[in-house]
């Protein structure tokens, strides 16, 4: 009995630790799948213990896997999973039920780096349902190779192409991609560092960190299917509200899935999808030749300003 109780309190401690939003914990370790089973003698207390255990299991145990850091391959010239990668995978996990319902046939990652994100997406979507095909690109030849190792270590597959964004795919893949994930090079740098060879291509984003993002957006618009979703990581310095307005002009609605501030940066993971209202607005904008109506501007900006006031409030209170 004593051991059982200590097992249970261990469990509670583990649950409490995992509730603490420690990305290290969640992304680093596989949870122990085998909880100790109860012994044969049945008492009411024991049954209640079991019931509570089950409750915690249902509430907090992840019923699915993401990529494990220890199985992610690495190379000196390839960007390793970091806060931005974790934020994007957390956003995909947070949106998992929608993704499963979405039943994407083709999923794509632009700039796959270590392979952490595309591997996690393949694991999150799993083998159930009508099945998805994954394509990942990177301009860095080391990155696509490292990604193939990471995928293999997790027993999943994606087709890899060493190319610049989607060069070579733009004609035939147009309108076919149901889910696109992008953790772009978003760090503001001098313009001449953009597209340099090796690991610099993973972060050098030019002026306001927007050079590559602004190249990716029209390509994403071309590749996404009518029901296609785009998840993209942005930095506050990238002016995400302006990115949302630009996409609104292409007929996309947007939503912040995750906002996360670290010591160095404040990240948003934004989800974009084609939306009838947004398309109507885009048409009107085209005919009236205005960049964005006041209403649209307000609706897009509100989510960011609300959020920033919420962040400052919560940081004051804590």
């Amino acid at each position: 009995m004593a051991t059982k109780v200590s097992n249970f309190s261990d469990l509670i401690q583990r649950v409490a630790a995992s509730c603490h939003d420690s990305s290290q914990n969640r992304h680093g370790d596989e949870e122990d799948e085998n909880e100790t089973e109860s012994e044969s003698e049945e008492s009411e207390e024991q049954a209640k213990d079991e019931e509570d255990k089950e409750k915690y299991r249902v509430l907090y145990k992840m019923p699915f896997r993401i990529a494990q850091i220890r199985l992610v391959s690495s190379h000196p010239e390839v960007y390793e999973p970091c806060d931005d990668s974790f934020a994007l995978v957390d956003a995909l996990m947070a949106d998992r039920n929608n993704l499963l319902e979405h039943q994407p046939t083709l999923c794509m990652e632009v700039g796959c780096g270590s392979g952490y994100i595309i591997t996690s997406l393949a694991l999150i979507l799993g083998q159930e349902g009508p099945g998805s095909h994954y394509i990942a690109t990177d301009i860095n030849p080391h990155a696509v190779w490292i990604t193939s190792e990471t995928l293999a270590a997790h027993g999943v597959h994606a087709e890899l192409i060493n190319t610049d964004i989607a060069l070579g795919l733009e004609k035939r893949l147009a309108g076919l991609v149901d889910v696109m994930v992008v953790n772009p090079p978003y760090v503001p740098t001098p313009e001449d560092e953009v597209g340099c060879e090796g690991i610099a291509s993973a972060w050098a984003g030019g002026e306001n960190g927007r050079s590559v993002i602004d190249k990716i957006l029209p390509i994403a618009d071309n590749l996404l299917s009518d029901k296609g979703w785009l998840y993209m990581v942005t930095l506050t310095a990238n002016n995400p509200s302006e990115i949302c307005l630009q996409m609104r002009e292409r007929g996309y609605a947007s939503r912040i899935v995750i906002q996360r501030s670290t010591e160095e940066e404040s990240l948003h993971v934004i989800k974009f999808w084609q939306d009838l209202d947004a398309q109507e607005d885009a048409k009107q904008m085209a005919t009236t030749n205005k960049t964005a109506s006041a209403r649209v501007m307000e609706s897009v900006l509100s989510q960011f300003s609300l959020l920033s006031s919420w962040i400052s409030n919560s940081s004051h209170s804590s």
Partner: protein
Amino acid sequence: MRLLTHNMLSSNIKGVSNGFPLRIEVEKVIEKHVDFNADFLRNMFPKIEWKAFVDAAKTIGYAELPEEADSSMLDSDEFLNKFHHALLELHLEEGGLVCPETGRRFPVSKGIPNMLLHEDEV
């Protein structure tokens, strides 16, 4: 590289008007088992350029696909099995993809095509 990917790639060198399909140069083809999923195949079928697919399969040594196909064939298990095998299980591991207009060769190494262009091709 699966034939599905070959079916999605084209050459977009500056000045090329129709860079599809890329001609396959075979050095090594491998087979990898993939779980059969009829729903996926039915979803994928309308997105495939059939003639390019049949020709690509022949080039890498698989000649079992019908020359022409329409959606009524998706009810046949025999057809779906062949489609599945050619689309997903055959991989061009080493070789090249050649632009039909310019003859420019895009290398495929360890199953990964390199579609990057040189500065003067963009």
